């Protein structure tokens, strides 16, 4: 089985990256629809986000003369970082045994999307974009306060940071209190870091006219939007990877069939998670930045409990 995987590593990785990239757009369309339905609106068609992005790709690029040089580079780099993140993370298909990912590496790649966005937005000549960049960085710091404790709890309780030995954290034989609490905290983070309401303070359409996005137009705008959406999907993927026994699913049914079933279940899980997030999002309005930071900061209590439990061996 393992030799079968390693011979197909590159193909599997490619399939994962391409499908997550496409799913990011479709899932956002579905989320928009769900949000609309919860709020008793009709909402846009499911493929609306895809249409938006495709349309933007056809538009000319806008250059901001007052912006620093990194402003123009940021969308390409952020998108590339999210693609590399997608390649490192097992999702629809496993990433080969000889190439097991590392939790820290994956998390750094995902959060470098935020960092690059923030560097780019704060380099802009547009004050709204600059403010959006600061907010992105502030939210990143606060959520990494929670993330740091969560990752430390997971690593300490499992004695490893390799995804192959962490997946899933809910192995019946070795399930620990700290892992379960860490999973809860990871779910919260996937929601917060995804920039969803009420924590969507970096784009803040009515207030900052798009915030981090406001300095971009045409294809760069599409790329940056796409990388932010892909980041959302990656966060959920990471959570799902640690929650469910994916390799057991694919191994149970043998090579070709097991993989197909695994991919289908994965897409289903992603869909369910997205719908839950969207339904939650429909209930909230946007927080003030300080309020958002304060709320996220308090989540460190949950991950802190997980960390302390892990440190003493529970």
């Amino acid at each position, binding site marked *: 089985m393992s030799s079968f995987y390693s011979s197909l590593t590159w193909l599997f990785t490619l399939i994962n990256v391409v499908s997550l990239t496409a799913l990011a757009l479709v899932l956002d369309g579905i989320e928009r629809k769900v949000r609309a339905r919860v709020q008793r609106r009709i909402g846009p068609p499911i493929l609306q986000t895809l249409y938006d992005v495709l349309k933007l790709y056809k538009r000319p*690029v806008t250059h901001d003369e007052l912006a*620093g040089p990194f402003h123009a580079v940021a969308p390409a780099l952020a998108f590339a970082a999210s693609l590399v993140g997608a390649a490192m993370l097992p999702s629809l298909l496993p990433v080969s045994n000889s190439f097991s990912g590392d939790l820290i590496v994956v998390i750094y790649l995902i959060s470098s999307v935020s960092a690059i966005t923030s560097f780019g937005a704060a380099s802009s000549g547009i004050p709204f974009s600059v403010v959006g960049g600061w907010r992105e960085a502030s939210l*990143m710091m606060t959520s990494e306060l929670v993330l740091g404790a969560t990752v430390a709890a997971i690593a300490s309780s499992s004695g490893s*940071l390799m995804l192959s030995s962490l997946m899933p954290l809910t192995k019946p034989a070795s399930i620990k209190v700290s892992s379960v609490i860490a999973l809860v905290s990871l779910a919260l983070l996937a929601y917060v870091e995804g920039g969803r309401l009420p924590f969507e303070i970096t784009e803040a359409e009515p207030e900052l006219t798009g915030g981090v996005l406001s300095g971009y137009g045409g294809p760069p705008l599409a790329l940056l939007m796409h990388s932010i959406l892909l980041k959302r999907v990656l966060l959920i993927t990471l959570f799902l990877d640690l929650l469910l026994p994916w390799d057991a699913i694919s191994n149970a049914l043998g090579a070709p069939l097991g993989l197909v079933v695994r991919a289908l279940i994965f897409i289903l899980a992603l869909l369910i998670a997205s719908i839950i997030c969207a339904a939650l999002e429909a209930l909230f309005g946007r927080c003030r930045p300080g309020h958002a930071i304060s709320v996220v900061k308090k989540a460190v209590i949950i991950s802190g409990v997980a960390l302390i439990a892990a*440190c003493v061996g529970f």
Partner: protein
Amino acid sequence: MVNAPFIQPKIIFLLPIALCLLCSITSLFFRRGLIARALISLLTSISSVLMLAIAVMCSLFGVRVYFKINTGLWGAAGTVPWPLSAITFSIDGLSAVFVLMLGFVGLASSVYSLSYLRRFREDYDLRSFSVNYSLSLMLMYLVLTVRDLFWFLIFWELMTLTSQFLVSFEHRRRAAVTAGLKYFTLTKVLAELMIIGGVTMMVLGSPSPVTEFREVAASLNLLFLSNPTVAMVAVSLFFTGLMVKASLTPLHVWLPDAYLEAPSNASALLSGAMTKVSVYMMFRLFLFFNPPNLLWGAILSLIGAVTLTYGTMMALKQTKSKSLLAYHSVGQLGYVVLGLGACVTLLSMNPPNPALATVAALASLYHALNHAIFKSLLFLNAGSVEYVTGTKDLNELGGLGRLMPVTSLTALIASFSIAGIPPFNGFVSKWLIYSSTMTVHGYLPVFGFLALFISSVTTASFVKFYTSIFGKPSRKLFRNAREVPASMLAGQVLLASLCVLLGVFPGIAWILLKPALTSAGLSTVNLGVGLTAFSIPSVAVNYPTLIAATLFPTAGIIYAILSSKEAHSIKGWACGALRSPQALSPPAKSYYEVFEEEFRGFYRFGEVLYDYVVVKGSQALHVILRGTQHLTESPSPMSALTAFILTALLLLYLILKLLGAMLP
């Protein structure tokens, strides 16, 4: 052991010293002008290159440097065993690593000096800079290579002395003089503790006093057996002296002022190399001298974690370019010490975990190397900006990215490196720190958590540093801003390429650092390291080269496609506001106001701590000093006589002790 066939390592070893001395003597004849600048830049650059050569020879080719120089002081060599008659020098794996850092930083900032020193052509006499810069470089080299604790202490004190003149070089500014004094007073006062600790180690452990490192280690071990309390006190005192030089919280207070006021090339040397000299001695102290001890593991890790948290959180608030960098020096040193603390903890816990201890030591050394490179680069960047605009104030700066493209690019690389964005060099060393601290039980994961959180604070504060200088437009226009001269660019480009190289190919760092680990007796067999990947079996795995090989081409291709598309320009946009975007450009101080407000509890706690430790501590010192002042200024005959007798007795005792030690 391979010996270099043509050139004696001893000659290569002594050449940098000779060149620095030559530089300090010849530069006495040139007050200002091109010759003065060229002299210092050229000689110290060559000296640094030779340091690099010797470091590479020792770590890569196993050349062994070990020799004694007879000083001729105090009788003929061989008859007087202790301690002035001979100096022993040696470069082992550990020394080689730190000499390497010194070489890189020295080379970059020396090349950079050629044009940078033009800043002072009107106002200052360059002689005081040249002499002290070259002597500081030389003394750091001597401190790193001397194998004799007595001479180590002497070189250490001289290094403090010469470097404080660098801090207060711009002596017409009161702030610079005050910063220099603060630096000198604090490091000097606490170095006295170090001397007491050092002398205790040399004298008390073995029957006759010893100074050679290996003998001191044996002596300290004996002292631990015979009198553990005294041994512990000696190690603590020695460590306190190292701590203040490495600017670990709460003894970091001199550093932000000193680096802010020193000329930027000196700040680069001080921050990049001098703090590492102290880290070098910590490695010696805790991995060579002192047997691994759980208490010291805990103390070091705790100090590391507190330092990295406090330093970086304070850095986030700064609005002057160089004080932001200075506080980050404090913070990053915290990472280095946390790595060392984790190593000591893992070696001494029950059961010991030697494999992860090696990883922790590697993390610490790797981060020290990386910090030497990216922090000196950042100081050079800040210096270039100050050279062009005349200001360090982030609130005023802005929009320089297009005017200074090379400086801007190198600053971006340095910012990404210190922020740990993959695949730049800071990422790999931070990953090693997390891997070694988080994957165990006990207190280490808590510190690993702080390290991960603080890494994002570092990222955010470099968003501020980079974008408020090179990104968003400024309110003030710097129309005359141009790219800096070639020699300044050369120094920056050298360091920036090292940031990329050491990040993308961790194997290079591994080759350079491995001898240091083996010389400390750490086993390196359990680590899987190739040129392109790092793996800690069943714990963690990292492929920086693969990340770079996918990330950069992908981004490049996407950017090329974007650039080929039709484009039109806009000139900012302020949602229809009538004022220009420049006028609306928000200042650096408001970047993280909201975040700072939400974490005010932390900052308040920091202030209280500062108040108690630093303010109250110096008040206590003040009382003692007042006492001595009273004694010296208005002495009563009785008190003067008492002081005289006491001093005489002390001296007599010391002389007798020394004579007793020297007689066979």
